[in-house]
């Protein structure tokens, strides 16, 4: 627990530090409007990062989230004129089934999830462009109230923010309080031993990738509803945004480690920087550099605190024939 606490303290401290600095230094940062927008975006990116965390904790990576989000958003909006609810349900079910399939393939064949999902990233992007070849799918005029409703302010955030945060926290609760959640950590810790402890590893992979795809779909649909349109080339920043938030949130790429609350804080840190950069009128290139530096700093700090260092690292160094630090 102490390791987790250290990681949590680090992120909490950094978030507060960033907020204080920005509030003092950046004009227009300390307003309700900025706060609401930050929280809303934290919820949106948090959904992606939480989905990625499911697969990363299980020792895998779902690199296809951006394309899954785009395709899901397009499906939901294309079916919108008939029934928006139907469109959303169909998009989520399709994403869930797709994720189950990916998880099953990875469990049964042992192919690298990174390679498989990069294939999907490319392939599904093509599908998105086939579904809406020219002009993007748009929300029907009669449904624009949905778009307005999502960005309606509720306290320090918006309806969209609340929906996202509730989903993320529910997921966190599920991971902490169910045996299935524990099984994800077990599989990511050591596949063979998880199997030896009676964990159905195929099921765990299917759940992880289905969860990741459905959360990406949710984020995609929410983003599309907010903007009122979904294009074939849209949402392509989702993958890097999500991975950055998850990694800044301390999720180990080696599997077996990560927690929702840290991922939320990771998303918060990334979004504070983005918001401050926007308010200062920085170019996106400068913002990217800042985000990259924060990511690198978090990795090094985690390593220094020992919150991320797994046993696998030690083992790898020994096999390479280098002496262990003792």
């Amino acid at each position, binding site marked *: 627990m102490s*390791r987790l606490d250290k990681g949590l303290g680090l992120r909490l401290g950094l978030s507060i530090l960033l907020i204080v600095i920005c509030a003092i230094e950046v004009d227009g940062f300390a307003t309700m409007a900025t706060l609401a927008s930050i929280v809303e975006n934290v919820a949106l990116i948090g959904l992606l990062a939480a989905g990625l965390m499911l697969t990363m904790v299980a020792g895998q990576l779902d690199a296809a989230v951006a394309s899954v989000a785009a395709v899901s958003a397009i499906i939901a909006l294309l079916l919108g004129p008939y029934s928006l609810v139907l469109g959303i349900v169909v998009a989520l079910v399709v994403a869930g089934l797709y994720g189950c399939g990916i998880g099953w393939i990875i469990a049964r064949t042992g192919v690298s999830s990174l390679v498989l999902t990069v294939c999907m990233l490319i392939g599904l992007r093509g599908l998105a462009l086939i579904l809406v070849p020219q002009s993007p799918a748009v929300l029907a005029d009669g449904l624009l109230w949905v778009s307005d409703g999502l960005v309606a302010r509720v306290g320090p955030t918006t309806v969209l923010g609340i929906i996202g945060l509730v989903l993320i926290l529910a997921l966190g609760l599920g991971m902490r*309080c*169910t*045996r299935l959640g524990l099984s994800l950590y*077990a599989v990511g810790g050591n596949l063979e*031993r*998880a199997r030896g402890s009676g964990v159905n590893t195929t099921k765990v992979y299917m759940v992880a990738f289905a969860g990741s795809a459905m959360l990406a779909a949710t984020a995609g649909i929410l983003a599309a509803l907010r903007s009122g349109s979904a294009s074939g080339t849209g949402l392509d920043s989702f993958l890097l945004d999500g991975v950055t938030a998850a990694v800044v949130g301390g999720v180990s790429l080696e599997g077996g480690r990560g927690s929702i609350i840290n991922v939320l804080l990771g998303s918060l840190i990334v979004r504070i920087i983005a918001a401050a950069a926007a308010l200062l009128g920085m170019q996106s290139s400068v913002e990217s550099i800042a985000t990259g530096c924060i990511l690198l700093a978090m990795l090094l700090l985690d390593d220094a605190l020992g919150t991320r260092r797994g*046993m696998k690292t030690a083992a790898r160094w020994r096999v390479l024939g*280098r002496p262990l630090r003792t």
Partner: protein
Amino acid sequence: MMLEILELSKSYGAVAALSGVSFSAERGKVTALLGENGAGKSTLVKILSGLVVPTEGKIALDGHIIDTSTPDRASKSGVAVVQQEISVLPNLSITENFMLTAPSALLRRAKAASACRAYLDRLGLGDVDVGRPTGSLSVGERQLVEIARMLAQDAQVLVLDEPTAALGDRDIALVHQAVRRLAAEGKVVLYITHRLNELEEICEQAVVLRNGQVADRFATADTSIARVIYAMVGRELNELYPAVGNRAEPDGSSASNLVLTGLRTAGLLGSVDLDLKPGEIVATAGQIGSGFVEPLRAVAGVTAMTAGTMRLQGKAYSPRNHRERCSAGVAYCSADRQLDGFFPDRPVWETMSAPALAASGLWGSANGQRLRRSTDRLADRMTISLAYRDRAVRALSGGNAQKVSIGKWLSNDPQLLLVEEPTRGVDVGARAEVYRVIRSLADQGLSVLFASTDLDEVLGFGERVMIFHNRRQVETLPASALTRDKLATWITHGSCNG
């Protein structure tokens, strides 16, 4: 009230792994299950754990036939097998490991933690913090967590497959204590081991398997080690340790191979001195934590030397890493063979040619055919069958795996071999083979320094013994001047009179 194995047979095609094995193991007693690799032990264990279905025969518990046709049914019938590879997950806490095998889908942490504490208490591990990640426990403690997990599933029959093979003294004592408690609670305990001294320590009776049949059964109180070995191997094994070959000058005029003077490391309180001649085999002995492995690690360059000098064939030598050690012609095999000794899932030739490949530099040729041929030469010197060359090391017996992890260094033409626990996890028959091979290398001029917790091995295989106590070298004596009891007194008290 007992576990009865009734005429159990299992054949794979024409090969019979078990044929008509019958014996019984009473509740409240620890029954040892002995046998060489290939004797049928592992098949029997797999049948009990439900991984293999027997061709014929039945298993009965307290007079009722039980169903062990699948792993699930076996555990429902009350049979629990603690495999050599334990399945406790290092990144989860003790409680979480418990909850992982619990039937409920929802986790109740507080309840699980108290249940977990109760089970660990029964095994003598009551004072451990159940919120700790299992990875921070010692291997022995992890072993106990695994056993506790099985108790939680109401296991009546516990099969322990070499539970102490990878453990140090303290952890062995922990596991022994737990096993005794389990037997006292009235469980059936089947204890598989290669360490014959465990027989008298914790087992009341023993069953020896050989070639898939029961070769012998006896109460351990009235038996001799010789009878056990005879039953296991099927012949007298009076020459477990090979005789020292002809050396011109065993001690005296010939030049020294390794000289340690006033060597100190962070793990030692005193300094270490040693003069190792070519062809000599010297043992370091001591309890776990007594620093007896330190000289090997310092010479290997794994731990840093803080004071003193090392001279290798007259030249100053102070390796900072494995690369410098290798180029100086020093071979080192750590006790953790799985991790350091070989690539378990890759073919034998890849492990055996790795040091040569590394020595050939970054731009050296990695021609597979050439590497395989060089492996053949090494395998020949180590008497490893050529048939194994393309098999995964994991599939080899403990003895052959050890020969692979030592033999790979021969390509660098080493002058000095450092081995930790040379025969840990190697069965009796194969052990003699490992000793013979190392001895024959020594007779060709190789010096050997090995560290071992097995006192019989220290005395039988070592020519001289460096004795360690409380992180100090207390004495160095010729093995011929020691007996097992004397050596035990030395390592526990640091002097010859307890």
